[in-house]
């Protein structure tokens, strides 16, 4: 099914925001609403760092390399968490996956 394939983010996938959300920043936190899923989300600081990085299309392995370098972490540690997060975004139609 197309929906399942859409959620299948790989390290070689290119991901970007899908023009399918509203956002409210208030009192130091932010809430994202997926328009088509009709659900509200909030992320931690790193989650928003990733979300904001998806304004422009980016390859997942490049995104992971940037995050690992910035936070002095191993790419092998960062990759599974990022894939899990991106798949969640994809399941809720918040990102495009190519």
């Amino acid at each position, binding site marked *: 099914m197309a929906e399942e394939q859409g959620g299948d983010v790989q390290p070689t996938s290119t991901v970007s925001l899908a*023009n*399918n*959300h*509203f*956002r*409210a*920043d*208030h*009192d130091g*936190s932010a*809430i994202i*609403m997926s*328009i088509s899923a009709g659900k*509200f989300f*909030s992320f931690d600081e790193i989650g928003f760092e990733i979300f904001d990085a998806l304004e422009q299309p980016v390859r997942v392995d490049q995104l992971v390399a940037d995050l690992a370098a910035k936070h002095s972490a191993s790419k092998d540690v960062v990759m599974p968490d990022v894939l899990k997060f991106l798949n969640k975004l994809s399941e809720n139609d918040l990102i495009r996956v190519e």
Partner: protein
Amino acid sequence: MTATEALRHPDYSLCGWRFRSEIRIAALPEWDGDPDHLPDIELVRGSVEEVPCVDPVGVIVTGRREATVVAADAGRFAVSDGRRIVADVHPDALPGVVETMAVGPVLGTLAYQRGILSLHSNTIVIDGKAVALSGRSGAGKSTLAAILLGRGHRLISDDVLPLREVNGRTLALPGSQNLRLWGESLDLLGVDKRGLRRAADGAREKYFLPTVEKTTQPWPLAALIWLERAETDRYFLRPSQGIFRTRAIYKATYRQHLAREFAAMGSREITNLSLPGVAVFDLLRPRGLDLLEEQATAIENLALNDDLPTIAEPVQVRSVHR
């Protein structure tokens, strides 16, 4: 002076824009800005192609810069580039209905084309602070607004309220400033309908309650109150926070389907529901018209609360034009 100039209405001020219209719009103040400033928006009469529409009033978006507003009892309005309106008005349309379309769905569409988010609200200025009353049809927006108007507060929007964020504050841009009220609401408030202009006819009549003193300035939006009817004997005015705050703002967004369509077309500006400086509340109200005066007082007290951003004078913004 040419014949055309003699027939033309004075230019209006709409949300801080200079608005030149071939249709008289009594709900708007005259332009009081720079006399040399060229019109930001122009409405001309003309022919507009028919588009299929099943709703009594619908907005058909054909692109980020093109849309047609279709009103069964008024006509068709082609809105383009956030600045040009062609009005194809039914010959027998009530002028009040045509005017309501121009400062309602047409304004809302035009604002989205400009990347400006609007609320659907009756907005009152209390103690220098704009308070937006929002809710579904029949929730009591207009009736509460009428009571607050009767207490000497100012109405700055009867339907569409375009917003602008400037220096971390949310500004309310004044739109239609004549309150439309159902005939039965006027009866309940003891207002004589005779002599009032009609804003809608049919099974339920609507009338304009005109505002004497109109404003051309943006006002700081301090509160948004989402009105909801409930099975209760009392009323509850409660702050909305977190997801509930965001959801209330989304529900108050003018014609959400338009916001969604423009978001899908990549208009990122209108997806920002942050509304900095705006406190959001739910007002759960009993059915019927009990306790209306008390609710109006609660709203007044809320606006007088020192915790809300206080501004005695409207904020001057020169960058509204584009």
